[in-house]
């Protein structure tokens, strides 16, 4: 067998011998096991991963009957805004439903954060109603907690990114605690309005992007929403593989949030009332795609083994083993997707 075509985590081409490929897979799973303090993949799983990564086909797929559903984040942003296709949100949803055969879709505002949506909630409700009248697939409304928007100059709270370098740690922590209270109110306000406007589900996306207080705000908002609307369907997608400790001392249900890896994040999301959990495993651009895929599968498997709710790992640019490049290469994204389903036992993507 000649060398196997693969890629680096930045999308550049790479050719590996069989031995090298096996070593990459082993090193990837061991790295995840070491960091997450979880079990590495076993020999059978590594062998199957080898087959997936070594396939000479450009695109790989699962066997018929093993397909999984897809949920989306930043759904209506990707086609018209990032792709530059001049179509509105309704057109984007219908294109995904009728041309791309999407299982679900997500509507979001271009600011994609709960705080700015608050001011235009009436228009967002109207758009959701219009979309619901036309679409058949479940349509979510999604946005990010984005705690940074509550800091000066964008918001009323002191900016912890400025306080921390000055050594004002207590003040920085206080500012984050203040911001998270404001975020809980805004997330609740927007989600309640969109739920009543007919959204089939709510997607709290990129949770934890501003650190542990961001994650805390999302958990608390979910808890509050579920207590008043037990039937509301909530998906939570994370921002990174471990919760960044910008505060460092916040606890939910007695568990410190900073530094939690996906399987621990999942357990808190379940406690808060989340219905679908989207773990994120960062792609390392200077390691190979097989290394990244093995690593992602190890973390996702640790989630699937203990999950009581469906797991939809993020498999897109820069996460889930998919390279960090402007356009994700199809060979890599299909391998990552199959691996996350077959080895990670993901319920969806």
């Amino acid at each position: 067998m000649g060398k196997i075509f693969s890629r680096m985590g930045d999308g550049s081409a790479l050719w590996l011998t069989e031995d090298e490929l096996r070593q990459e897979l082993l090193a990837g799973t061991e790295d995840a096991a070491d960091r997450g303090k979880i079990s590495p993949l076993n020999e059978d799983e590594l062998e199957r991963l080898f087959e997936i990564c070594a396939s000479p086909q450009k695109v790989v797929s699962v066997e018929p009957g093993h397909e999984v559903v897809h949920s989306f984040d930043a759904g209506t942003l990707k086609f018209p805004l990032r792709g530059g296709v001049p179509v509105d949100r309704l057109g984007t949803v219908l294109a995904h439903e009728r041309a791309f055969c999407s299982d679900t879709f997500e509507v979001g505002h271009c600011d994609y954060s709960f705080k700015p949506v608050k001011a235009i909630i009436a228009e967002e409700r109207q758009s959701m109603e219009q979309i619901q009248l036309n679409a058949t697939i479940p349509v979510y409304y999604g946005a990010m907690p984005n705690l940074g928007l509550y800091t000066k100059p964008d918001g009323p709270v002191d900016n912890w990114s400025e306080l921390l370098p000055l050594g004002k740690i207590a003040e920085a922590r206080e500012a984050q605690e203040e911001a998270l209270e404001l975020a809980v109110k805004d997330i609740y306000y927007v989600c309640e309005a969109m739920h009543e406007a007919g959204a089939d589900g709510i997607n709290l996306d990129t949770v934890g992007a501003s650190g542990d207080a961001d994650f805390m705000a999302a958990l608390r908002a979910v808890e509050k929403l579920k207590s008043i609307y037990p039937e509301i369907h909530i998906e939570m997608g994370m921002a990174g593989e471990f919760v960044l400790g910008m505060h460092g001392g916040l606890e939910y249900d007695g568990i410190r949030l900073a530094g939690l890896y996906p399987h621990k994040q999942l357990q808190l999301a379940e406690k808060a009332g989340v219905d679908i959990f989207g773990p994120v495993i960062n792609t390392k651009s200077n390691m190979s795609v097989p290394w990244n895929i093995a690593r992602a599968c190890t973390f996702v498997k640790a989630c699937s083994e203990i999950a009581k709710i469906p797991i939809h790992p993020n498999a897109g640019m820069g996460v889930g083993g998919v390279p960090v490049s402007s356009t994700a290469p199809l060979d890599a994204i299909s391998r990552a997707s199959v691996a996350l389903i077959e080895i990670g036992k993901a319920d969806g993507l």
Partner: protein
Amino acid sequence: MSEKEIIASAIEAIIDGNEEKALAVARQAIELKLDLMAVLNSGFSEGIRQVGNLFERGEKFLPELIEAALIMEKVTDILNEAIMKEKATGIEKKGTMVIATVEGDVHDIGKGIVISMVKTQGVNVIDLGRDVSTDAIIAGALEHKADIIGTSALLTSTISQQKKLEDELRRRGLRERFKTIVGGAPVTQKFADKIGADAYAEDAAEAVVKVLELLERSKA
């Protein structure tokens, strides 16, 4: 207490974020007339490097990292004063680095961590901010007589600015005047080699090592 034990205590104090202990260790090292540069470099600085590694693994968090850097500053002041008395000269700054997040990119958490870590190693670090144009970066480097220009880019759409900086330095005949180091999530060693940067660092801990190497090279 032997020098070896003092060094081990210095590392431990920084990792634990124990200011009282760190200052006591520094004072003890002075009283015992130990090699203070060794205590600083192999003890306290090593502690900071280990904190950086723990942060990168999600086992230490930002406030702890900042706390450790602040303790390090206080320790350095004490040791510096003692060295000045002893040798009538202080711990010389190892060099000057300007650092910026490139134009079009406002992500600066990583840059802030790099600054905190590199400063602890006796490097004069000037933060030029975020979303900084190539012209402003070069002007900043000239103004501060920098040895190193560091740039960070988090987006695949902004890493081209790091290449633009290399090209612009070459175009203005300034390339040999500065060492350059690049970092950021989409940046790789391969990319750094391709654009002609002098160094690439994956994280803050590696940035410290690479910056010190670059300063050595620029003196050689």
